[in-house]
């Protein structure tokens, strides 16, 4: 299906590649980030962090620090304890230290905070604080965390006797076991989805500005979910007087979030406490290493994956067993009822009978987290498992992995499709996507070339990933965070002159909301997108919403914008009927105006109708032209994609070159093709990252071995291949504008395509699986072990 633009370019509704409205200020260096905020009398905070992964704090000596010129205070856990602010809840209803009173649980954990008159003084103060530790043997290896001999880490939890957090399962265990027991082919791999970090360009930070006179807190902070943060602050600090009406959260421009700016970090709470106690604004900005070493990680799932099938390539069942390493507390950012997020989407794009999935989460002495790094809550882990196993199965039975996929796809007629784990996939056409990708890359030609190269001993691989995402959390019956339902909102105000401002409960971090939301409203109201100002991030002005992550903005707030705009169009129709003296039924809409059926010369433009709403509205009608909508989605949306990657591997150095990468995405109707393409490019680069480069590594003592960007390898433009993108369009049947969300598809879909390509290249030597990130060294080592070099 192709999409046609219903509006003119001047209006700039859906489907127009309108230039991003926000880029003017970004390109001129006029963005306004948290660190740009400077307030009168502002103080600066720095944080002393633990060099050890697990240690008792014997003493914190602040004397020398307090003598450093400019240092005003050193705050410790004992200080916060007096206000009962030393612990805070996590989004998963676990608990996390703000500052420790007794024990540190991971390297780089906050130990004390310095408040000073300048950033430099704060840093000098930090270096002057002396902390005495009694080092203990940490639990680092997740597979040993449940050993009876392992120390119990969360001794703060009364009665806790092990390091187990929770167990989760879904699917039909008995039936799955029966299918596995009788299947002709069973394949199994142990895989690790590495612990990685979002490494956004802007680190986290805030300015906490508490006014004693007004008993009011304004919190400027890098958050993807300002309203939720306001509620959390009120829940944590309500008892000291910061009730919700006294708190305003402002999230200014954000330099990348990717899920890492959803959680509440201890630094925010300490800054608030400091401002509250001192009565002056306090700024805290993390440095790069703190961001990488202490802020929430993503992934870190150890998965035992199994697939059962017939000899000729029909998938019969899957089984996944996950060990989830959460660090010292479960600070994931999942909807409350979903401890493993949407991992249960791991049945993938395939139509087969049964599955059984289970997960156990454990505590270790590593930083907390489990954020959804550009991913709808663990979909990345799920997609990697199913797509890797699909290729593994194809390899086992000697079948072409593309053909195997065609033979197992959920047929397009089968939608809405009920998955064995309870999802209702809204729509999809997987076959069309894969065909398009294969044509674009010349799949047949590549396989021929591969055969020739293999005969010469050269390593070339082709990898496919045909994934299904599940995004847009979510319907209120299932989705909440700390009890707050995951709807989202839009409020549109059209001014008398026909120009508008619209505010949202979401928060862009580079996604381009200021443009795409304006386009949605333009589509529905015919007001040029150029004339629609979009605002997000200020809880005093924007309607309540749960923020931007998990590709939820278009599915929720975007839908809210369309519905609110339709409410306004209905109002405009009434005004038009009144002005044109006809019945509402006699009117027809074309983008930008109502006209009388059969008499198109009798019409009123949307601008005339809005003006009338303020100057000449029908008696009995409410004046003005405003609408608000809180959209509770009836279902999630299920974007999909077909990615094919070609790699060439240098046998002698292990170097992997991604020769081509074709990405065909299906995100339903497209709001702005250029922005979608930009999102896909960025997402693919963040997909290549864990596939080939990124992984946070700890030694047995819990020391991070790659805690700077020199050693934690974020891919740069140099490593990014030439992405070839395209799309198929299968609109979401339940979404008001048929859109599905796209920001995360590429991050989710790319890693298995790359891993499959590399394993395909190495498969002649008996290599069936490699854990990501697949580095040249890993390839070289694997070839060496197999005697291939």
């Amino acid at each position, binding site marked *: 299906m192709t999409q046609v633009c219903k509006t003119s370019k001047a209006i700039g509704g859906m489907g127009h590649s309108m230039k991003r409205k926000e880029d003017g200020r970004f390109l001129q260096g006029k963005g306004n980030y948290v660190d740009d905020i400077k307030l009168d009398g502002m103080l600066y905070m720095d944080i002393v962090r633990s*060099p050890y992964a697990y240690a008792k704090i014997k003493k914190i000596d602040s004397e020398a620090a307090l003598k450093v010129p400019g240092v005003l205070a050193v705050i410790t856990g004992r200080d916060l304890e007096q206000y009962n602010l030393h612990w805070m809840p996590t989004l998963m209803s676990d608990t996390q230290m703000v500052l420790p009173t007794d024990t540190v649980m991971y390297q780089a954990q906050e130990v004390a905070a310095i408040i000073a008159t300048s950033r430099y003084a704060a840093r000098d103060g930090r*270096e002057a604080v002396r902390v005495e530790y009694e080092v203990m043997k940490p639990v680092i290896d997740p597979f040993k965390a449940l050993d009876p001999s392992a120390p119990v880490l969360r001794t703060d939890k009364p009665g806790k006797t092990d390091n187990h957090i929770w167990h989760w399962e879904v699917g039909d265990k008995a039936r799955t076991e029966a299918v596995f027991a009788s299947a002709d082919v069973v394949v199994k791999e142990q895989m690790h989805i590495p612990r990685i970090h979002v490494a956004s360009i802007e680190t986290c930070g805030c300015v906490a500005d508490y006014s004693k006179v007004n008993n009011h807190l304004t919190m400027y902070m890098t958050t993807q979910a300002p309203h939720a943060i306001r509620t959390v602050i009120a829940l944590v600090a309500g008892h000291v007087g910061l009730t919700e009406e006294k708190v305003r959260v402002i999230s200014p421009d954000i330099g990348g979030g990717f899920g890492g700016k959803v959680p509440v970090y201890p630094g925010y709470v300490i800054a608030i406490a400091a401002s509250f106690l001192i009565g002056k604004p306090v700024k805290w900005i993390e440095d790069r290493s703190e961001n990488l070493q202490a802020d929430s990680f993503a992934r870190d799932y150890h998965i035992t994956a199994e697939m059962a099938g017939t000899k000729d390539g029909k998938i019969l069942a899957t089984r996944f067993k996950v060990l989830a390493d959460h660090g010292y507390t479960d600070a994931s950012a999942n909807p409350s009822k979903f401890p493993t997020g949407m991992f249960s989407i791991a049945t993938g794009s395939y139509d087969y009978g049964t599955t059984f999935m289970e997960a156990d989460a454990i505590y270790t002495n590593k930083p907390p987290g489990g954020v959804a790094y550009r991913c709808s809550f663990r979909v990345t882990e799920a997609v990697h498992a199913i797509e890797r196993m699909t290729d593994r199965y194809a390899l086992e039975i000697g079948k072409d992995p593309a053909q195997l996929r065609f033979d197992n796809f959920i047929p397009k007629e089968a939608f809405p499709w009920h998955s064995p784990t309870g999802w209702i996939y809204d729509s999809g056409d997987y076959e069309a996507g894969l065909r398009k990708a294969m044509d674009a890359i010349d799949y047949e030609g590549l396989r021929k070339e591969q055969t020739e190269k293999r005969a010469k001993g050269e390593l070339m691989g082709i990898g496919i990933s045909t994934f299904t995402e599940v995004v847009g959390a979510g319907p209120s019956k299932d989705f909440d965070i700390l009890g707050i339902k995951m709807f989202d909102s839009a409020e549109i105000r059209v001014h008398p002159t026909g120009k508008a401002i619209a505010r949202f409960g979401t928060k862009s971090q580079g996604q381009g909301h200021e443009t795409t939301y304006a386009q949605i409203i333009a589509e529905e109201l015919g007001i040029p997108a150029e004339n629609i100002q979009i605002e997000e991030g200020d809880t005093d002005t924007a309607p309540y919403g749960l923020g931007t992550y998990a590709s939820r903005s278009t599915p929720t707030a975007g839908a809210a914008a369309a519905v609110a705009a339709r409410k306004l169009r209905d109002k405009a129709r009434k005004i038009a009927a009144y002005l044109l003296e006809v019945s509402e039924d006699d009117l027809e809409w074309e983008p930008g105006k109502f006209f009388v059926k059969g008499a198109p010369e009798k019409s009123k433009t949307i601008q005339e109708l809005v003006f009338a709403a303020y100057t000449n509205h029908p008696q009995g009608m409410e004046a003005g032209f405003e609408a608000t909508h809180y959209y509770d989605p009836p279902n999630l949306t299920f974007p999909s994609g077909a990615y094919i990657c070609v790699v060439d591997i240098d046998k*002698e*150095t292990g*170097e992997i070159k991604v020769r081509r990468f074709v990405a065909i995405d299906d995100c339903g109707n497209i709001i702005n093709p250029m922005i979608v393409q930009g999102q896909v490019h960025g997402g693919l680069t963040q997909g290549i990252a864990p596939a080939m*480069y990124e992984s946070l590594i700890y*030694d047995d003592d819990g020391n991070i*071995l790659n805690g700077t960007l*020199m*050693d934690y*390898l974020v*891919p*740069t*433009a*140099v*490593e990014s291949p030439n992405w070839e993108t395209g799309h198929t369009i299968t609109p979401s049947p339940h979404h008001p504008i048929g859109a599905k969300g796209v920001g995360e598809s590429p991050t989710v879909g790319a890693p298995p395509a790359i891993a499959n390509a590399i394993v395909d290249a190495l498969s002649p030597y008996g290599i069936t699986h490699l854990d990501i990130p697949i*580095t*040249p*060294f890993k390839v*070289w*080592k694997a070839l*060496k072990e197999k005697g291939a*070099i």
Partner: protein
Amino acid sequence: MKLFSYAQATKPADAVQLLGAQTQSKFIAGGTNLVDLMKYDVESPDRLVDISQLALTQIDATDKGLRIGALARNSDVAANALVMKQFPLLSEALLAGASPQLRNMATMGGNLLQRTRCHYFYDVSQPCNKRAAGSGCGAIGGYNRIHAILGSSPSCIATNPSDMNVALAALDAVVQVTGPNGSRSIPILDFHRLPGNTPQRDTVLEANELITAVDLPTTAIGGKSHYLKVRDRASYAFALVSVAARLAVENGVVRDVRIALGGVAHKPWRLPDVEKNMVGKPATETTFRSAAKALLAGAQPHEHNAFKIQLAENAIVRALQTVS
């Protein structure tokens, strides 16, 4: 970070004088290495003498070749027409290192003296003979994937991380220095040291000597050159192994050759005897591989870096094939 005083020099002689006799003073050029080390408390000078304003940034043709001022920026050197024409190997090696932003700051002198990237050297809570003489070596028995396979000692197994230095070794560069006792010229192969039992010294330069220039002699070798760098990421990463190769072939026979290795030792690794031995032999893989093996003779792997031996061998062969 320790408090320090700061002074700016405008003339080389002043720089040397400003540094004075205190051993705790240091020159600062681009600052891209020194400032990092100071932030980590690996280096803690009392005084910094800023030499970035010295008029030592010229790149001039001399009767023997090319003279590059010690303060010439890595990016300017890499893009210089004379360098690109006569010594493209140097451009190639410089561009293989760091990032554009860093190269805009980094200088010839600073690059010559950049310190090892050994993780333990950077972590002041760990033992390291190079940072604190006699404290031990964290890398021996630790995580030593990036460490040396050649020329190391029981005191230190660190490598010299520079790409530029490898090219300079293959180009027979000469380092010009000046100090309180006058000036001297140091051939590049004598400039960097093996660790022995004094790994705290990377080079033969005295603490109060200033590098003023690097000379590149125009030799008759001719032929082609290539810098091959193998690393974990295609940009912004140090070499696991690198090879700077120059090769002149006549009628299928090696006429002259230079091979320097990076990432494998405490200094750029070159064995002139191995090169001499290749002269007159056919320019084939067999010759290249036996030279590679000879260059790596006596290589001693540590727990995590045995891969470097074969990787280096392959890389040497590949680099020579590229220029033959």
